[in-house]
C-alpha cells in the first residue's frame, strides 16, 4: 500500500488539520508516513500546501515527485489546479467548488470550472454548503476530508478515530460536530463519484 496526497488551500483554511487526522489514522494502522508542511510567511493568506505520503514500506522523500500524487485534496478550486503537475495520470482531484477570493485578479470562476471539467477524475463539491446543512459551519475542512476518505485506502472508522484523537481535547461537542461533517462529506462524494 502506498498513497501520495497533496493537500492545498489558502493559509488559514485548515489543511493542516486534515493532514493531522489522516496522519494519526495512518500511524494507528501501522503505516509509515511523512508529511511536509508550509509554515511562516505564506500562512498569511497565501497559497499553502502539504505533501502527505503513506506507505506500508519506509518512505524516502518528504516531497512527492511530479506526476506521482494519487490524490489532490483542495479546499479551494484554483489552489487544486496549482498542483496538477504533481498528479499522476489516473489521479483524483477532490476539491471545494467555492473560490476564496483575496486577490484582486482572481480569475472568473467559469474559467476555473472549465479547467476542472477537463480532468478525467475529480470530485467537486461545495463543502461550505454541506457543512451548513449539517450545522457544522466551522468544520468545512473536515467535510472535505470526508469527501476524500474513499480515496485514502484507510478504513472510514480509522479516520473517525483520528478525529476523536485530534479534536478530543477540545471537548465532545467539537468531536461530534466534526464526525457529522466527516459523514456529510463522505455521503455527498459517494453520490458524485
Amino acid at each position, binding site marked *: 500500500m502506498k498513497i501520495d496526497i497533496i493537500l492545498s488551500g*489558502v*493559509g488559514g483554511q485548515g489543511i493542516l488539520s486534515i*493532514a493531522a487526522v489522516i*496522519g*494519526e489514522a495512518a*500511524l494507528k494502522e501501522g503505516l*509509515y*508516513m*511523512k*508529511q*511536509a*508542511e*508550509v*509554515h*511562516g*510567511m*505564506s*500562512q*498569511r*493568506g*497565501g*497559497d499553502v500546501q502539504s505533501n502527505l505520503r503513506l506507505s506500508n514500506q519506509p*518512505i*524516502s*522523500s*518528504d*516531497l*512527492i*515527485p*511530479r*506526476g*506521482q500524487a494519487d490524490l489532490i485534496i483542495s479546499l479551494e478550486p*484554483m*489552489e487544486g*489546479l*496549482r498542483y*496538477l*503537475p504533481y*498528479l*499522476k*495520470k489516473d489521479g483524483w482531484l477532490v476539491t471545494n467548488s467555492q473560490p476564496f477570493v*483575496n*486577490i*484582486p*485578479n*482572481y*480569475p472568473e470562476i467559469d*474559467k*476555473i470550472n472549465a*479547467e476542472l471539467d477537463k*480532468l478525467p477524475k475529480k470530485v467537486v463539491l461545495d463543502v461550505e454548503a454541506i457543512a451548513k446543512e449539517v450545522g457544522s459551519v466551522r468544520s468545512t475542512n473536515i467535510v472535505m476530508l470526508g469527501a476524500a476518505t474513499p480515496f485514502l485506502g484507510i478504513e472510514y472508522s480509522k479516520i473517525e478515530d483520528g478525529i476523536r484523537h485530534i479534536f478530543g481535547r*477540545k*471537548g465532545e461537542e467539537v468531536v461530534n460536530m466534526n464526525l457529522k461533517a466527516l459523514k456529510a462529506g463522505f455521503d455527498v462524494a459517494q453520490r458524485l463519484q
Partner: protein
Amino acid sequence: MEKHLFLGDEAIAQAAIDAGLSGVYAYPGTPSTEITEYIQSSPIAQERGIHSKWSTNEKTAMETALGMSYAGKRTLCCMKHVGLNVAADCFMNAAMSGIHGGMIIVTADDPSMHSSQNEQDNRVYGNFAMIPMFEPSNQQEAYDMVYDGFELSEKLGYPILLRITTRMAHSRSGVIRRPVKEEKAMSFPEDGRQRFVLLPALARQRYKILLEAQTIFTEKSENSGYNKYFDAPDKELGIIATGIAFNYLSENYPEGFEYPVLKISQYPLPKKQIEKLVDECKEILVLEEGFPIVEEQLRGLLGREIKVHGRLDGTLQRDGELTPDTVGKALGKEISDYYTIPEVVEQRPPALCNGCGHRDVYDALNDVLKEYKDAKVFSDIGCYTLGALPPFRAIDTCIDMGASITMAKGAADAGLFPSVSVIGDSTFTHSGMTGLLDCVNEETNITIIISDNETTAMTGGQDSAGTGRLEAICEGIGVVPEHIRVMVPLKKNYEEMKQIIREEIEYKGVSVLIPRRECIQTLTKKKKASKK
C-alpha cells in the same frame, strides 16, 4: 515500540528534553520556531522548570546558553539561518573556549527562501568555527543526534552545530523516543579560567588546541553511524548525498542504488570514506541541500584531479532547494508530467490580515508622504514587510533585523528628508534599540514608527520582549518625551494619526511614533481560549 508523529523541529525538542536539557534559548524565526514552542508546552519541561522563555535576540540567546553550559548544564540554542549571523560573535568564540555542559546549536536554514531574505547555508559556519556538525536526513536521526549529541559535546568539549533545512524542520514522521535522563547537576570547569578568558595569550593556546582537535573530529565522523557507505556494482559514478539530499536520491532508486553512494550526515567530512569513493569511482556527483560546500572542497581551486558534478557545473541548479525531481534529473531519470498548471491560475502572495493594525499605519503614512516627494521608508523584518506589496507599496527597504532605524539614519546623514523608519515591536527590541541610541546621540532628523502589535506576529504570536515598556525604553535611550507619540491605528483615528505623523516629520530631531493595537491573530486566539 510506540511511534510519535513529530515535526523535525519537535523531534529535536523532545530529544533535548529526554537527554536531560536544562534550558533552551532562542529567538523565533521560521523554520526554527517550533523547537522552542514544543519545549514551552511540554509537561516534563514544565515540571522540571526547564528554561524556555524567548530571548531578546539570537546573540543574547547564544551567550545565555553558553553561560548555562559553563555552569555545567545541558543547553540548546535555536535560530533560523540568518539568526546565526546575529549570534556569530559568540558562536565563533564558543568554539575557541569550548563548553562544559553539553551544548547544541540548531540552525534552521531556508533554501528556496520560503520565509527568508536569503538562502545562506550555515554549514559554512560549522566549517568556519571548526566544530563538529550534524545534518540529519530524517526525523529519527534528528532525534538520535540530539539525544546522543549532548554527551558527544561534553566528551569533545565543544559545542555541536545541528543544521536542518525547511523540509526537515517542517516535515512530520514517526519517531521512537528513548528513556528520559536526569538533568545534570551544576558544576564548573576546573580549567575554566584557562579556557573561558579569551585574552590574546590564552586565546592563542585555545586556537592551537582547537586546531589539534580537528583530527579527533574527523575520526568521529569516519566512525559515525550517520555517515554510511553503500556499495554498488557500477563504478562509472560515485554519489555523495548529504542530509535530506539522501532521501531524494533514495526516492529515485526504490530498488537499490545503481552506483556507490556515500551518505553524509556528520561533519567534518569523513575523509576515509570519501577517499574510498573517489578511488573506486570514475566521476563523483555531489547532492547537497544548499551551497556547493562539499563539491567545492572536492574540486579544489582548479578542479583538475577529480571529475566532480553538482551545482557548480550545472548538473543541478545553483540555487534553490533540491527536490526528488531535480535530483532525478541530475541522475538522468525521466520525469512523468501529465498535467500542467492551467494558465488561468494566478499567484496568491501572502498579505496583511484583514483588520491588522499595520494596514491602518501604512494607509495613514502613505497619505502623509504624498506631500513629500523625496520621502523614503526604511522597513524591517516582520509581518509589516508585506507593506511592500500592493495595495500599500509603502516601503523602500527590508534588509535585516533592526536595519530600518540605522539605514534611515544613514540616509538622513546623507541629506534625505523625510527619512522614515518602520519597525515592529519585537524587531525593535531585537536589534533596533542600539540604532536608536546612535540617532539620539547625533540628534538625527528621523521619524521612527514602531508599529506595535504586542507580539512577534510573523512567526505565530510569540511573546515580544518589550511589550508594555516601549515608551519607557525610548525615553531611557534619550528620545525627548514630547516626541514619543502613541496612537491607536484604527480608521476612525486617521485624521489624528496623519496629524501626528506630519508634526513629527516636521520636527527636526528624533521622533518615535508608536501606533499600538494588538495583532488580530493573537486577539482571535485569546478570544477563542477564553470561550472554552
